[in-house]
């Protein structure tokens, strides 16, 4: 994995937040202003109780929501300028959100179609992306013919085909069984190492956060805010051995403790 370069933040929150109006008697809901830098090559995981603003943070990072305080910068610029410069941000939503009326291949080709890439070039990229997630054999099927785990992988392939530099993932594996999830986690690590992706990842799973991240951000609720940052630095590669190591266990222990403190 390329070393994170903190001097050149790829995504930066400068006191950016977004609160939602509720009844005045309620606790403040939404995301309080936060500051956060994500450097190229980082794999940052957001970990926190339900309602602590993880999805809100991700939507701000995807420019799908305007912050009501501060601002968000991509490559030091506004979203549109950064986009025009050819940098790419893409999103893997919590459920696969595929087009049921199109084939798997056409779904994966969507971001390329949207930027009007010539068909031949696009198809080459689609094949490549489908191979990365091991789904080249189902390219012609409709999403409805796939299992939930396969659909999720189609969604990931669609994100990869876009050739992103920044990948935003909102609990992508939450609906999957433990076994599929572990397998996909391992695939994610390989993918990120190979493609040099920068990833902002939301999860409820401590083990998943410990396995994937270079940095875990533990969040607290009411209002949503950053409670602690925890760097993860395994001695060796992230593989099955890492999952079984004492180092992994101690990372999980630390994260569990932080999460409990955040919930207090």
């Amino acid at each position, binding site marked *: 994995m390329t070393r994170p370069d903190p001097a050149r933040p790829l995504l930066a929150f400068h006191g950016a937040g977004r609160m939602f109006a509720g009844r005045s008697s309620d606790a403040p809901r939404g995301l309080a202003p936060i500051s956060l830098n994500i450097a190229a090559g980082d794999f940052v995981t957001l970990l926190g109780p339900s309602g602590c603003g993880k999805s809100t943070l991700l939507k701000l990072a995807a*420019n799908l929501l305007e912050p009501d305080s501060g601002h968000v910068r991509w490559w030091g610029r506004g979203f549109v300028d950064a986009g025009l410069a050819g940098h790419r941000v*893409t999103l893997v*939503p919590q459920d696969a959100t595929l*087009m049921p*009326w199109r084939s798997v291949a056409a779904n994966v080709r*969507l971001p390329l*179609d*949207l*930027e009007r890439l010539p068909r031949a070039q696009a198809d080459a990229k689609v094949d490549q992306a489908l191979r990365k997630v091991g789904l080249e054999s189902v390219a012609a099927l409709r999403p*409805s013919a796939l299992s939930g785990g396969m659909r999720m992988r189609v969604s990931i392939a669609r994100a990869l085909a876009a050739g992103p530099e920044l990948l935003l993932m909102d609990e992508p594996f939450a609906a999957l069984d433990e076994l599929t999830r572990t397998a996909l986690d391992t695939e994610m690590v390989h993918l990120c190492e190979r493609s040099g992706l920068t990833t902002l990842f939301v999860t409820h799973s401590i083990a998943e956060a410990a396995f994937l991240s270079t940095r875990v951000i533990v969040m607290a609720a009411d209002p949503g805010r950053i409670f602690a940052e925890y760097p993860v630095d395994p001695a060796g590669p992230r593989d099955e051995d890492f999952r079984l190591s004492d180092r992994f266990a101690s990372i999980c222990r630390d994260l569990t403790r932080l999460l409990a403190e955040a919930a207090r």
Partner: protein
Amino acid sequence: MTGGAFGAMVRGIVGPALVLFFVLGLWQGACDAWSIPPYVLPAPTDIGHALWRDAPTLTHALGSTLLVTLSALGLSIVIGSVIAFILVQNVVIERSLMPYVVVMQVTPVVAVAPLIVILVHNTFAALVLCAMLIAIFPVIANTLQGLKSIDPGLADYFRLHRATRWQTLWRLRLPSALPLFLAGVRVSSGLALVGAVVAEFVAGTGGNSAGLAYEILQSGFQMDIPRMFAALFLITLAGLCLFGVTTGVQNRLLGRWMASR
């Protein structure tokens, strides 16, 4: 697989056919047994005979009615989609125009038809207009609903990837709207026929543009009840054909969707 589908088709045809023969037999038997006169209740054979005897006039009338029906349906589809499309452009437009669409729907067209017949001099145009007023609402309502029923996750994805308005329309909105649009067209096709017949009744047009409703009226004046039933039979047949065709089109176009249901 094909055997199963074929079997299902046979069962789908054989069952209703048996019921039909049974009912027709009972009807015929009752008419014969109590020698009910044809002007009270014509036996199926009387109706068949009328159908055969007046085939030229009746098929000509059927042609006129179908022409009005199909014209009204076609116009409803085109104009209805365009109206839905305009309505969905923005909330202000929808809020301002929707009440009038509803007014158009709740006003009984039978009551407006005489006015239309007076105002529009061309009889054919008047008939089509009446039928269209009845048939257009399901297209508008369903297309509008369809254009709005977009997966918000997909809409976000399109936005994130800076899809143009046109791309969003062509790749997301229209495909999302298709199932509801087609369901609307299917309802409309039935209503267009109803509208055509109602309009013909009101207009009472004879001559070259005489439709099946006119034949029914005429038969009534002449106390030719079997012929009346024959015309009625043709209207029902036309309705069934329309239903079959629109259902077929729907299944064909939605094949991609159906696989997901």
